[in-house]
């Protein structure tokens, strides 16, 4: 459908589940995820129309990612050191989801967004680059860097 007849309701129905899941994975907490979800869609409604027809999903991811990064900067969140996490973790053979989630939390916002977009949301690099406003190469580099840190954290 062309954007002439695209409505806020359609944007919500098509993308809200995916965006909410993304917000939840990025922020790790329901209340924060809800704020991010609301801020993202409100920002989209205010900035209407979408910049490119048929590319609304990448547009929403971009808004959500920027907002999440801004929020984190404003909160001046103290990010735990990955090495500290590895030292604190007890010795084990298997890695639980909670371990992984904890390690994801420690990633810098840009890398965390890249990792979640690729490995959890399953977006192609082209869309990740659009969401993060960087080149595909840079998006790959961020995912790769995030993976390296996560592997080290849960090793």
């Amino acid at each position, binding site marked *: *459908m062309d954007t*002439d*007849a*695209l*409505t*806020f*309701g359609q944007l*919500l*129905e098509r993308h*809200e*589940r995916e965006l*909410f*899941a993304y917000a939840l994975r990025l922020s790790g907490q*329901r209340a924060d995820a*809800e704020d991010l*979800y*609301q801020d993202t*869609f*409100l920002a989209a*409604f*205010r900035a*209407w*129309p979408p910049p490119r027809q048929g590319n609304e999903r990448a547009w929403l991811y971009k808004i959500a990612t920027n907002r999440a990064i801004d929020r984190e900067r404003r909160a001046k969140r103290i990010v735990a050191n990955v090495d500290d996490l590895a030292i604190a973790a007890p010795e084990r053979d298997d890695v639980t989801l909670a371990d992984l989630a904890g390690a994801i939390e420690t990633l810098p916002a840009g890398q965390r967004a890249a990792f979640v977009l690729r490995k959890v949301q399953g977006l192609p690099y082209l869309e990740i680059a659009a969401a993060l406003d960087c080149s595909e190469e840079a998006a790959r580099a961020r995912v790769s860097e995030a993976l390296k840190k996560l592997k080290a954290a849960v090793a």
Partner: protein
Amino acid sequence: MTMDMVIGEARERLLARAKREGLATVGYDVLESPLGPLWVAIGPKGVTTIHYGDEPSDRELRRLVRVYGPGVVPDHRRSSVLARELDQYFNGKRREFDVDVDLSGLTPFQTKVLAATAKIPFGAVSTYGAVAKRAGNAKASRAAGGALNQNPIPIVVPCHRVVGSNGSLVGYAGGLDVKRRLLAIEGADLFRPRRH
């Protein structure tokens, strides 16, 4: 709590904020009815749309966006009065609708045809020719048929009460069977069309 419930609550809060900022102009909902699902929309001046089915037509959506912008959002609360009145109508407990209707965005002729149609009382039928005449052009019965076929608010604007001069049903956007059922609810006598 399921993911759907969490998102549902988040959505309610989002839409309340959008409404406060004047970003949400039209609220829509899908109502269940004996005729199947009805996609309904309510704008600032009243009911804008009743569409047979659970999704609106492109034409209808374009009209809403043209008149009220893209702020067309899901809203169960806004449709509650219409839902109650439709329920009462289908159960034989209501003969007239009290909800306001909003025909913005239609051509002047369509508006006149629908305004004339709105005056046909419960249980009565009129003809395309009579409606065309009331709309100001007695020779335009075919055009009146076209306007009625694109009636955005069927049932409440009772285009089902317009039939051929010989009592034949002729046509209906929701299908002839639906037209027949609506007339049966009202106990209309097809072979005695009145001049309304």
